[in-house]
């Protein structure tokens, strides 16, 4: 019996420090539990965005959980609420609706969980650590300036919109129209939504090219890259008189620019937006808050035309 007591005492003495150490030392992965809600993971733009997030998470030891907001506000809200219930250390939001996401961002703040907004901003009222991305309003303004380069200060323009009500659609249009107001001889004669869809953009471009014969339409501007199919069709129809100015920069648009099918586009760099969102999340959680640009980290939007298309790799 005394022998047994000795053995038990020795085991406890040996094991106790280990147990104390295990409970006392925080596990890094648990402290870097980050949830990322992307409003529509099936949108090709976010493929490279999420890749950037995952690469940063792997490098920095972040336990990243990416969830799809399915293009529906109620799903985006539900995902963030789920992250709150799971007690994530930090939440990254890429909202489809800057205003609609505000209440649940407030909920996260009330639960003591910091929030970073990426790619699309959160409206006033939703307190975030920082916003990483480009300003959609500036994006629209850059498209307007590219249009001026393409056609000069006079001409009729068709304007293809993204999915109505989304932050890029609303704010790119705002920036574009504000810039265009300084050029009264440029008239937006037609405006339709293609819902970021190639086939819809093709149909709209075809209809406009029929409605406006040669000389009556100087350009078609598309908020997104889906207008590339319409541009290819225009060239096939011999409508070289219509210049196409697009937004974002997938491989098809790069090829179209080098082939003179599209005049130019504005780049958004989704990979680095995603990477930086997780990098800032990690820095914030590790107490290195001076490494986080606040209240915003605006990223540059390079302009791509035939002159530099070969040197700028596509976004996706």
């Amino acid at each position: 019996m005394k022998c047994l007591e000795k053995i038990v005492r020795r085991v406890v003495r040996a094991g106790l420090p280990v147990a104390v150490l295990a409970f006392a030392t925080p596990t890094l992965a648990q402290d870097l539990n980050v949830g990322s809600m992307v409003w529509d993971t099936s949108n090709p733009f976010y493929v490279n965005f999420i890749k950037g997030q995952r690469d940063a998470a792997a490098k920095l030891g972040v336990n990243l959980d990416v969830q799809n907001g399915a293009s529906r506000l109620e799903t985006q809200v539900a995902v963030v609420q789920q992250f709150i219930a799971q007690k994530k250390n930090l939440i990254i939001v890429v909202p489809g609706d800057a205003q609609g996401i505000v209440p649940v961002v407030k909920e996260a703040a009330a639960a003591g969980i910091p929030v970073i907004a990426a790619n699309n901003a959160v409206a006033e009222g939703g307190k975030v650590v920082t916003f990483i991305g480009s300003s959609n309003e500036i994006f629209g303004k850059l498209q307007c300036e590219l249009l001026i380069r393409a056609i000069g200060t006079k001409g009729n323009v068709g304007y293809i919109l993204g999915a109505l009500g989304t932050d890029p659609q609303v704010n790119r249009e705002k920036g574009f129209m504000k810039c265009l107001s300084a050029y009264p001889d440029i008239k937006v004669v037609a405006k339709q939504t293609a819902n970021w869809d190639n086939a819809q953009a093709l149909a709209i471009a075809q209809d406009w090219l029929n409605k406006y014969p040669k000389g009556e339409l100087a350009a078609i501007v598309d908020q997104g890259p889906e207008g590339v199919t319409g541009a290819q069709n225009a060239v096939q129809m011999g409508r070289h008189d219509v210049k196409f100015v697009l937004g974002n920069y997938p491989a098809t648009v790069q090829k179209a620019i080098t082939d003179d099918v599209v005049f130019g586009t504005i780049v958004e760099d989704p990979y680095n937006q995603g990477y930086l969102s997780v990098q800032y999340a990690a820095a914030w959680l590790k107490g290195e808050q001076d490494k986080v640009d606040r209240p915003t980290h605006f990223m540059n939007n390079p302009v791509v035309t035939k002159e530099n298309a070969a040197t700028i790799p596509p976004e996706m």
Partner: protein
Amino acid sequence: MKTSGGDATTVEPTAGQFKRTAPDRRRLSAFAARYGIFVIFFLLVLFLLIGSPSFRQPNNLWNILQQNSIIGVVACGMLVMMVAGGFDLSVGSIGAASSMTAAFVFVQGSIPLGVFSALLVGLAVGILNGVLIAKAHINPFVATLGTQVLVQGLVFVGSNAAPIYNLPPGFTLVGLGHIGPVPIASLIFATVAILTWLMMLFTRFGHYVYSVGGNKEASRLAGVPVDAVLIGAFAFGGLCAAIGGLILVGQTGIGSPSAGLTWPLAAIAAVVVGGTPLSGGVGTVQGTVVGTLLLGVMANGLNLFGVSPYWQPAVTGLVILAAVGIDTHHRFKTEGA
């Protein structure tokens, strides 16, 4: 009661006999019930031909055919499934899966193998739908909703949700090419429509589809192989969705994992507007073709007239309600008289 006066004898209806309606009015009602949607389509086209110089340009009319070829092909498949008494919510996912499969194989170097693989994918998912409905007795709504989500998920997993670019440019002939003035996509639509019409009217399978849709149990008792017919109908629907996916790859030059999201409702709308009820047993290919073109002509007209994108959904909804409402009202009056 007979009365006689002078040289003539007249027979007047008694209180118990019903009045006969004028033959002209009855014939007109029967015509409207049968051809109502064609008349509405004709009137819409006439209105646009008169009201819009752009609409009546030959290029525009060919464009309408090309733009609606995908939904037209998918709607032919949806017609067969709806006549059989079901419908398929997974046609969009099938289109996306087929387009991604085709794009993947095209990039490896073989267009014929890519086309074959895409059609095989459509057929396989269609058969799966049919088996779930016929053998597992799962409601078509639930079965095809499940396969829609399953197939979409598998496409995302397989492709990392990334589109496939750099396809061989030759295949865009299918989506954007022409033979003379006629778009190749429209020729594909016409071929599928004609084959569907022949199948439904002149083959035993087609007759069985109508029978099963009309009354499944009576058909079973009469010796119709109901399960095989349902599986066949959904397999055909899957094949049509795959053809739609191939035309989409031809039009866009991209394999897109999120393609086809609006196809299920658009195809069902085209079939219903064409006069096919959701209850099954009834429906025509020509009605489906007209329904597809009516929706396409309307969208084209709204674009040409510059109707605001905020108003377009509302106008489209009103026209659909009006077109289907008038058609259904006439059918009800004729069948109920």
